[in-house]
């Protein structure tokens, strides 16, 4: 008796003839083994970057953010660029877990756990930038509305910057809950096969006493479905609100109604690119090629080419509107500050165009979508391009404003701005390395769940059944 049926046209999601036990064994093995030399090397580099970041931030606190090259005209530079960039990267995890869950996309099971973890770490990195940009970081709690002895003076609920506070903290909380509630059963799997006392103790704590009861599974499925339903509009709202930080202003280049969908598409685009970069390494290092298959990579590449083309359309629409509005300020921003290669920041615009719009078009070719090296190369380029995009939006819009006397000289970051950015890379990768060592990088129970419908050996069995004559089929299986 087969409980579910899936078309033979779909590629298997799990390759090889696997039993449930093989799945457990292969995914959990890296947790139980000592990490390899590559892991240590990567981890130490990440920690070194993190320490440099911590030192840069220490200097920010001690000397103030005057040590950055921001000025009156370019008041937002690398810090906010990095903030938006990281938040964008933090969109793929929830998109994979939530939207693809609602759309019943089976392939999400191989990649969702790592993508969700990546989301959480990226949002953690993103949060650092606005917090330290405040300058007096020890007063950062002022952004929360709470009864206080200063009036009470409340925060301004009409301000997009405050919406951001709520959006990002909510997004972070919900992502953590979503991620961890899915992790509980897998932690229990690790706990139940643990050989050492320490591991039994730690995973015993982390697994919350999970037993695998049918009632609990029923509840956790209901929970993840509703959380997915909540997280889907949430993930769209977060980058919509981030885009409103810009779109509700009156700065040419920011003041556009196209921003929310354009930012969301860009966020998904960069998030998937980052997921690709990380998972291509993870599947190689942990030998998970059977679970993160070429089919998974191709599916993500399809999303990359789709969202990349959406941002491409948005870029062209902006250029068109820059001309069509006949506003000389809009025209100057779009056609001189950005699209003119020989303007001071023209390089960033054309870097963005190349990396985000032109290069990913190669994914229209099936061969390229299924090539690991091309995919890795392009996923890195896309993230570079998306960084350029945020830089273009922020800096090229403000470095020459309405009054030429207040135009900025060429803004470039100091070593401490760069150090802060590198530090968030350190934070991100330190967290990711620890995650990949101590938690199953693939959702074990979800793979088991799709194994019988989408595993290679089971698909072959189903194929054999399909080829049988109808009468025989009815005789054999219908009763």
């Amino acid at each position: 008796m087969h409980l579910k049926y899936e078309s033979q046209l779909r590629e298997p999601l799990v390759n090889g003839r696997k039993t449930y036990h093989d799945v457990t064994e292969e995914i959990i093995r890296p947790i139980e083994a000592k990490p390899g030399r590559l892991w240590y090397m990567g981890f130490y580099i990440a920690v070194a970057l993190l320490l440099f970041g911590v030192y840069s931030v220490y200097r920010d606190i001690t000397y103030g953010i005057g040590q950055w090259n921001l000025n009156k005209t370019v008041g937002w530079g690398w810090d906010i660029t990095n903030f938006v960039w990281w938040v964008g990267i933090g969109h793929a995890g929830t998109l994979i877990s939530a939207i693809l869950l609602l759309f019943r996309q089976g392939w999400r099971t191989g990649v969702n756990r790592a993508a969700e973890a990546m989301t959480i770490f990226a949002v953690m990195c993103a949060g650092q930038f606005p917090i330290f940009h405040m300058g007096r970081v020890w007063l950062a709690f002022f952004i929360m509305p709470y009864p206080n002895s200063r009036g009470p003076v409340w925060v301004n609920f009409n301000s997009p910057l405050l919406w951001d506070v709520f959006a990002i903290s909510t997004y972070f909380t919900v992502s953590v809950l979503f991620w961890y509630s899915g992790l509980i059963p897998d932690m229990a799997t690790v706990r139940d096969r643990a050989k050492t006392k320490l591991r039994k103790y730690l995973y015993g704590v982390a697994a919350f006493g999970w037993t695998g009861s049918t009632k609990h599974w029923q509840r956790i499925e209901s929970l993840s479905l509703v959380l997915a339903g909540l997280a889907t509009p949430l993930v769209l709202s977060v980058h919509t609100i981030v885009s409103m930080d810009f779109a509700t202003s009156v700065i040419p280049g920011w003041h556009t109604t196209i921003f929310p969908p354009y930012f969301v598409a860009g966020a998904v685009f960069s998030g998937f690119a980052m997921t690709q970069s990380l998972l291509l390494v993870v599947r190689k290092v942990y030998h998970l090629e059977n679970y993160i298959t070429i089919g998974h990579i191709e599916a993500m590449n399809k999303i990359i080419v789709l969202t990349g083309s959406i941002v491409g359309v948005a870029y062209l629409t902006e250029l068109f509107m820059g001309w069509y509005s006949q506003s000389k300020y809009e025209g100057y921003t779009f056609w001189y500050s950005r699209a003119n290669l020989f303007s001071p920041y023209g390089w960033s615009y054309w870097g963005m165009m190349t990396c985000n719009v032109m290069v990913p078009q190669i994914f229209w070719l099936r061969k390229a979508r299924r090539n690991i090296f091309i995919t890795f190369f392009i996923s890195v380029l896309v993230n570079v391009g998306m960084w350029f995009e945020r830089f273009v939006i922020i800096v090229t819009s403000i470095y020459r404003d309405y009054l030429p006397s207040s135009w900025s000289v060429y803004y470039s970051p100091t070593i401490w701005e760069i150090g802060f950015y590198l530090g968030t890379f350190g934070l991100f990768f330190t967290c990711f390395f620890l995650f990949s060592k101590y938690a199953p990088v693939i959702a074990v129970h979800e793979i088991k769940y799709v194994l019988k419908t989408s595993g290679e050996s089971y698909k072959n069995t189903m194929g054999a059944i399909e080829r049988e004559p109808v009468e025989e089929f009815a005789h054999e299986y219908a009763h």
Partner: protein
Amino acid sequence: MAKKKFVVGCFDNEEALFPAVKKVRTAGYKIRDVYTPFPVHGLDHAMGLRETSLHTAGFIYGITGTATALGGISWILTYDWPLNIGGKPHFALPAWIPIIFELTVLFAAVGMVYTFCYLCQLAPFVKKHHFHPRATDDLFVMVIECTDKTNVDDLKGFLTSNGAIETDVQVAEEGWWWGRYDKDDEKTLEKKIVAA
């Protein structure tokens, strides 16, 4: 919590599990629970469990969040400290929608997860009796509660004839207690007791 006697039958695939669940139920035995390594769809119906109302709880938490945000912001910006922003209305509902939405989601998500943990008794340092260590790996473990009248050997035979690859009798605590998984406590020690 009291200790109870359970008959445990382990199955190695869900194709054998489903008919077995049906037969055990029709034979009049009380299935305490079936422990599975992943969610087996339809098993809850086969066992006669009712639908969970967790989503209803989520809805209630959600509207609590909506009400909190709307109420809080209105009170702050129209009554407690009205700000004149370019002469615009104090009750600026469209500008509050983002925060109202975020708090709705936040309350619903946090509330649901806590309710879920409460209902399933999940928390750090919570310990329960595990009938089979492979229940989180590759075995489907059916646990049947014994009454005074249950003939344990018959039941074990019945399970085996229905595809169980392993059967067992265990006396165990049925609730949860505070404990650590690296230490055996009294509650789990008394595992295999041969029925009279």
